[in-house]
């Protein structure tokens, strides 16, 4: 049980590495990368996907000329990105609006509802109330499908993916295009992974 101590060689190598780290930090701070992007990359990606989900969904009984309402709860970043994404666009002639509802009682007026993960746990009652209504519920929270949500966004292998809970979709009365279903992981009421 002897104590064998071999002191590591300090010196040039480590100072060089520390200096290069400092260099990296300065370069990045001064290059204005952060200033260059308005929106964080994956937030823009999620907003673009939400817009696309609405393109491939059908709300029964939606009168022509009526606007499609995107509701975003708990994520100002995605709300802002969505406002930019839908600006000047329409889906099948329907104008697009983005709202940030504070009260879950108003969710029934939404066509697509995005819930941030932080809101998921407390949203159970609100989601229950709109389960049978044609509201396309989307979240990037883990296991959203078990909270009776319809589409769950997740990252796998470095790419954005989404899972669709078919039972929740059927219950809501929405029709999702086969193109969307073909790209999704299909889930049928998977219970939660706890602990």
């Amino acid at each position, binding site marked *: *049980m*002897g*104590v*064998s*101590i*071999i*002191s*590591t060689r300090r010196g040039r*190598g*480590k100072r*060089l*590495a520390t200096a*290069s*780290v400092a*260099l*990296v930090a300065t*370069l990045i701070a001064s*290059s204005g*990368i*952060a200033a*260059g*992007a308005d*929106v*964080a*990359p*994956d937030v823009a*990606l999620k*907003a*673009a996907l939400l*817009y*696309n989900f609405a393109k491939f969904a059908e709300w029964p009984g939606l009168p022509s000329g009526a606007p499609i309402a995107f509701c975003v709860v708990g994520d100002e970043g995605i709300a802002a990105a969505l406002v*930019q*994404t839908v600006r000047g666009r329409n889906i099948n002639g329907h104008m697009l609006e983005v709202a940030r509802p504070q009260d879950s009682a108003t969710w029934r007026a939404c066509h697509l509802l995005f819930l941030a*993960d*932080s809101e998921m*746990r*407390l949203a*159970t009652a609100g989601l229950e109330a709109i389960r049978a209504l044609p509201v396309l519920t989307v979240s990037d*929270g*883990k296991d959203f499908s*078990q*909270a*009776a949500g319809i589409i769950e966004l997740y*990252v796998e*292998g*470095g*790419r*954005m*993916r989404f899972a669709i809970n078919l039972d929740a979709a059927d219950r809501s009365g929405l029709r999702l295009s086969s*193109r*969307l279903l073909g*790209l999704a992981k299909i889930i*049928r*009421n*998977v*219970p*939660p*992974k*706890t*602990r």
Partner: protein
Amino acid sequence: MTMSIVRPLLATLFGLVALAAPCFSQSPKPNLSEMSIEDLMNIEIISASRKEQRAVDVAAAVFVITHDEIRRSGMTTIPDLLRLAPGVNVAQINSNKWGVSVRGFNAMYANKLLVLVDGRSIYNRIFSGVLWDTEDLMLDDIDRIEVIRGPGAAMWGANAVNAVINIVTKAAADTQGSLVRVDTGRAGEQAGVRYGGTLGAAQYRLYSQWSGRDQSLIAPGTRANDASHSVTTGFRADWTTQPDAFMVEGDFTAGQARALWPNLDPRTAAREPIANDPTDSQGGHLLGRWTRTRASGASLQVQSFVDIAGRQEPVGDYHRRAFDLDTQYHTSLGTRQDLVAGAGYRFNDEKFDGHVGLSLTPARSNSSLLTAFLQDEIGFLGNRLAVAFGSQVQYDSLAGAGVQPTARVIWKGFRRQRVWAATSRALRTPSLRERGIRVDFPPVPSGNGLPLFVSALGNPAARTEELVDVELGYRLEIGRAASIDVTGFGGRYSNLGTSETAAPLVQFVPSPQILVTSHVGNELDATTRGLEIAGQWAPLLALRFDGSYTAFHVAPHLSAASQDPISATADGNAPRTQWQLRATFSPVTRATVNAAMFHVGPLGQLRVSAYTRADVNAEWRFTSGLSVMASGQNLFDAAHAEFAGPQSLLLPTLVPRSASLRLRWAFR
């Protein structure tokens, strides 16, 4: 690679990553809203502007090592992967053994850390530690590793004193198709195959992996003859029949590892003070889980496992059989309360037959552990403030009853910030080794010519250690793509283990000799305090930086009656500071470059120097399923020490520089 090339090369690589990034950002940004869904799904994301979302709203110091981080790190062992989290002390002891702890008190068998794999504890009661060399999971099967620092006792039970590490494997549905992975290099080799398929409504996977670790070094240029190899075969199956979900998993591992042991045989010790005999280990487990979810979101989970292990070391043979049954119920009450409650039973049958010089009394012991816990989280002020109270009570047939309460509060009123605070109590029950070990060292000549016999004894009256701590945390999202997570903590430990040495005895029977005996005591109290800061910044989809800084300080308070002078200056065998900086960059869709630097401060009492570890790797993806990764690890020094001293009964060695090549091929 010679030293003169490595360091400038490393600095250049870090520089390249930074310099290339501005060029990348000036190229025309794709207009995402004009892209089709298929194209959107093909965009490679290395960064997510926020990590595991759930972690943001938890009133605890949580860090999640994601599957992607595991893949990009280029690391092949779980102890190495744990370096990615802040606050974790990882010290490689020899080629196949590690000391891993959180917030101090590191040792080969660090006893204040609870480690779970899919909810199954891999903490050993006899050693009061984790046998890392028998954990041979396929890293591709790991979905995430949750590191929850601080007393997790209220949920997880005793021995979750400093942290809980939860290794969660992927559901079988996420590992479909075939996978072949081969890793070869100077530190070791690994070859694994996995097949995942469906059978009716069930998904399953079968896998088998062979791992070999090559020798480390005793001194630069001198090998330590501590190679190891193991084979693991296992499976997992999941199936759902509304509203129930079932999971079954199991594995079997067998392996052999060499290490440098002190020779305890008095007949040969003088000639060969160091023995190099192999350790054989075998073990397997079977785990089943049933979860029922109601429409309201409430869920009931019942989990059970059996675990059998055997280990034949030069110092003795060890056998264990364990059975565990655990239930957990989770529900929300109204719109403001979230309740988790559970109960569990564990039965352990352990046996240790010591060889020459080492014995355990009693050699065999059965113990039962009954636990129950409850945690209630209540929202106030429109759920902007959440207060949680919880407690775990347990009855241990060996250590008696214990209560481990916790109180936590988090303020969620700010959109981009979270503030939380927690106070908890945690207990560590004494191990069978602390109660009943006896080690007799071979005689050594003493100063005055008489042989000196040293014996180390356990103490059947060894007491339960206790921690009461306070934590304060703050999380901030900076701009759109960066976040920082700060945790400060202070703890008070009581009844920490010491080694009480009695005054030397001169004995004349059977022949003149000096006897020195020490026994386990609990005479040390200590206060600790520390700071853990973790940050991440993802300025581009394909560029990401992660970093962390950990500061830690122990103030020991040894009782006046103690005869363990070493403990008077205990420093927890953990560095006062450690930090890491990691960068990941994907210059083109098919390639990713990762660079990481880990700095670990010196271990004062063990007299281990500080070291900086630099890892670099580059991955090239030929197709979405076929990739090659070249990596270098520990690039700064040809060899360095990470641990020393008598915390284990074997000789620590030096960690060498290494390089490896990995091929990964996934196909359907």
